[in-house]
């Protein structure tokens, strides 16, 4: 996700030869495969909705809030956060975020997200001591340290190589 930053920084040249279409010209033309698939897909979707509505242990209105809430949280918060972090790092480095550092940032975010309920111990019960017994905070920190060590090492090696190549090149 190395290019989030460049997305937030005005780049006229990039905009002209933009990587993205200005309109979505790739939508289906409504061929037979599309319509059969869409019909089959919606039949399955309706089956799922009916299951949710008919199961007394599912509270449909509450479930809908969680499902829709997740979508809003991702599109309105997470995506914006990713873009802002990318922009901030690019601004600090005064250049596009190097690929390996962008990877380390993204992996840190994903692992932290997954680890969060474990680290916080939301599901820990005193009468089930064999569940969630690890020191998850320590485990996460070890993983993040390894990730950043690898990223910094790869970044440094790449930089040294580029310098050597530049020195060897005829002036």
């Amino acid at each position: 996700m190395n290019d989030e930053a460049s997305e937030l920084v005005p780049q006229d040249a990039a905009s002209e030869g933009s990587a993205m279409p200005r309109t979505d010209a790739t939508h289906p033309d409504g061929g037979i495969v599309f319509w059969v698939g869409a019909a089959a897909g919606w039949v399955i979707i309706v089956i799922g909705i009916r299951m949710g509505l008919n199961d007394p242990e599912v509270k449909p209105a509450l479930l809908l809030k969680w499902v829709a809430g997740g979508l809003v949280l991702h599109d309105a918060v997470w995506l914006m956060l990713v873009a802002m972090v990318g922009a901030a790092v690019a601004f600090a480095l005064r250049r596009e975020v190097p690929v390996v550092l962008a990877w380390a940032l993204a992996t840190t975010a994903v692992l932290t997200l997954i680890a969060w309920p474990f680290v916080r111990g939301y599901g820990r019960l005193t009468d089930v001591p064999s569940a969630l017994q690890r020191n998850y905070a320590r485990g996460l920190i070890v993983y993040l340290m390894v990730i950043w060590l690898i990223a910094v090492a790869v970044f440094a090696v790449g930089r040294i190589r580029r310098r050597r190549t530049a020195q060897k090149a005829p002036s």
Partner: protein
Amino acid sequence: MVRATDVVNRLGSKVEGRFTSKLHETRIAAVLGIALGVSFTVCFVTGLLSHLVQHPPSWFEWPSRPAGLYRITQGLHVVTGFTAIPLLLAKLWVVAPRLWTWPPARTVAHAVERISIVPLVAGSLFMLFSGVANVARWYPYDFFFPSAHFAVAWVTIGGLVAHIAAKITLTRDALRHRPAPDLATATSIDRRRFLGGVAATSGLVALATSGGTVGPLSRVSVLAQRVPSEGPQGMPVNKSAAAAQVTDLATRASYRLVVDGNVGTPMSLTLADLRALPQTEANLPITCVEGWSRGANWRGVAVRDLVAMAGGREGAEVTVESIERGSRYRTSTLTHDQSQDRDALLALEINGEPLHIDHGFPLRLIAPNRPGVMQTKWVTTVTVR
């Protein structure tokens, strides 16, 4: 006078134009889409299997062999779900500019395609969040997790079917190096780096979470719910006797196992009676739906021997019932194939020791190829059908 639609059009176009990265390209979206499609299909099929095993309709019979099959399918379900998280986030980032496509729909087909994305994306996010929360034993909502997870799984897979139908041609073309004419493409190095990075993150997530079921990875799986070898008698516990409020009842000297139902000789057996019966040994895993599993040596009375002793029909369906009250998992049923299996036991011992009370003392069911929630603990009644 400026019309509102013009303003919205200009705004949509402006936001969309901000996504200048070469990585927001069709080919990367196609590769990630295929990986996600495979992951979600694996999760759906294994999840559906788990549901059918636990709530079997009349047409479905889960075999008792291979003994470790459920261990594989459920382990795969959980690990695949975890590894799909980086894939989903990467895919949504790659296609994020399409969120701002304006006008939102240009034809009826385009409108149907875009509407179908809503259940797919919303469902995917909920499935992965609720799955991780379940493994973390965290239920921040007031609905029953398995029912909600199962219903939304259908919604998600329906969205996936519709999405595949919409994108199959585009994906095929993109993979044949035929990018859409209005798309600038990433270089192959950019693409390889990005996809390699996503694969590496998925691999790390697998490494960090799969040790609960893949024993050799236990030491490096720092986010696994369990250390498989830790718990009373080297076996994890999902529900303790204290949590089930059975400690007093299970340890009373008056404990009896009642065998009744469609039998010639109903029986009431003390713990000493059970120990005096012919004993059978089996090495079987406990496989939790939350993704951890652990094998052990079990010793006890074979269910088929007990049914035969009571004069029940060979291959009869057998329901075992726990002392525990108020739990939805207090009974479980062995089908005729399962009750006939030589390794379906009412176990008295684990790894050469009497069962720890948290493992179901005095008597628990252990049978091949079953979810842990169906290996009923603190068994007090066996009903032969």
